[in-house]
């Protein structure tokens, strides 16, 4: 079935259609939200659920001209950013963790992909959001600035700080990193 057929079914309230859409796109939605949630799977699950609820509710406004996956991805990012804002309001400013910098006991071994994920997860939320949106998801600074309600300059500054912090956390040689 095409996306549009499933969307029509979902608008009509069909569980089968909604589930088919979910199974088609759930992994993409979850991947984006999981990284924005700093690798917190419980948080990501909650935010992904909010994203899906928002998307299904907004389906009647979806215009067929756009890619459904792109439209849904935007909703997922927005749900995660909204979740982050709520979390920051509730918890106040970030407190530095009494933890070690990410240890790299395998400096001479190929860096595993999950170390990248772990380093990403250990960034402060502000840096992580910008880094994920720019370097992982491919958003422009203008789009990021609009989404996060910050200036383009702040978006750039956060990105460069985040990349520098990632480099500190990952350590190792270029050749090692390239072996991912």
């Amino acid at each position: 079935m095409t996306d549009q057929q499933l969307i029509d079914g979902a608008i009509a309230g069909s569980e089968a259609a909604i589930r088919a859409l979910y199974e088609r796109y759930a992994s993409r939605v979850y991947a984006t939200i999981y990284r924005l949630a700093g690798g917190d799977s419980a948080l990501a699950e909650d935010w992904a659920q909010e994203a899906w609820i928002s998307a299904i509710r907004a389906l009647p406004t979806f215009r067929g001209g756009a890619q459904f996956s792109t439209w849904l991805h935007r909703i997922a990012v927005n749900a995660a950013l909204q979740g982050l804002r709520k979390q920051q309001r509730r918890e106040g400013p970030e407190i530095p963790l009494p933890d070690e910098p990410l240890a790299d006991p395998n400096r001479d071994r190929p860096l595993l992909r999950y170390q990248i994920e772990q380093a990403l997860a250990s960034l402060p939320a502000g840096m992580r959001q910008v880094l994920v949106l720019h370097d992982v998801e491919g958003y422009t600074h203008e789009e990021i600035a609009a989404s996060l309600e910050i200036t383009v300059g702040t978006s750039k500054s956060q990105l460069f700080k985040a990349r520098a912090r990632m480099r500190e956390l990952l350590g190792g040689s270029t050749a090692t990193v390239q072996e991912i």
Partner: protein
Amino acid sequence: MNHLSLENLARLLDEEPSRSESEHLAECADCRSELAALRADRDALNALPDLLPPPPTAWPDLAERLKEEGLIRTEVTGGTQVTPARTGGRRFLYLAASLALFLLGGSTGYLLRGADSGGEIAHGVGGQTTSPGSASTGGGLAARGEEPAGVDPAPVYRSLSSPSDRLALGNDAAAASRARLTELFEDRTPIPAPAKAGGNADGVEPVRGARRARHLGGAEVVALEPGLAHYFAGATGGVLVLHVEPGTTAARSGLVPGDVITTAAGGEVQTVDALWNALSRAPAGAVSLTVIRQGDRLELQWRR
């Protein structure tokens, strides 16, 4: 020679260098090397998998919400659709079962190790005594980034190549359980700030993530469920140490897998959040920890 800062080098991934930056890069091999490493980091980030399967409980939970919101009005019939009665209960049971399985394995390995070494666990060895027979070592192998042959270190990060693969994972309860269990014990996400919700009668706060393993100062820790506490002689609750990374704060403090931390900085700790709070709010220097180890009560110093 003054090197370019990492932030400036990070900027040069997107922007042209100034004249002075160009001149410096032409002369400085170190800065060129750092720039290349930053570029490789960015490429690695860009190459992260786009697909990450959500936990298998996600659909039933979502379907229930959609029904509550009136967005599902026509349910699937014929007995193939599973709708949970209470999703919160499902999630708890799932995690509790995973934890119980892990702890059972861990306890067995721990006891076996104890028997092999005459029942003695060396004090102050900083977690370097992890045994090949212990479940915590099995979980910790992947968590330390060592990739055992044939074992994916992080199933949740696995990029499944086809929809049928993803569907198979979603439909295969055993695979899902393994993935979830591995995820549970590989989670090294920073400890979130404590939830504001109040605790229940037994002092164990029903906060999200309270039962998940966390990484703290090089130790992988989880709240000790009251129902499991009787496996740990002398402990009625606290925070259980699952794994200790050598050379870290936890290791230097003398913590070893199997320890149950009951107090930190003089205050009782029943959850990982409470432990995190105590450690983060204490002044710099040593923080006292009370630990139950094989029925003995020890006082350790968490040295930052």
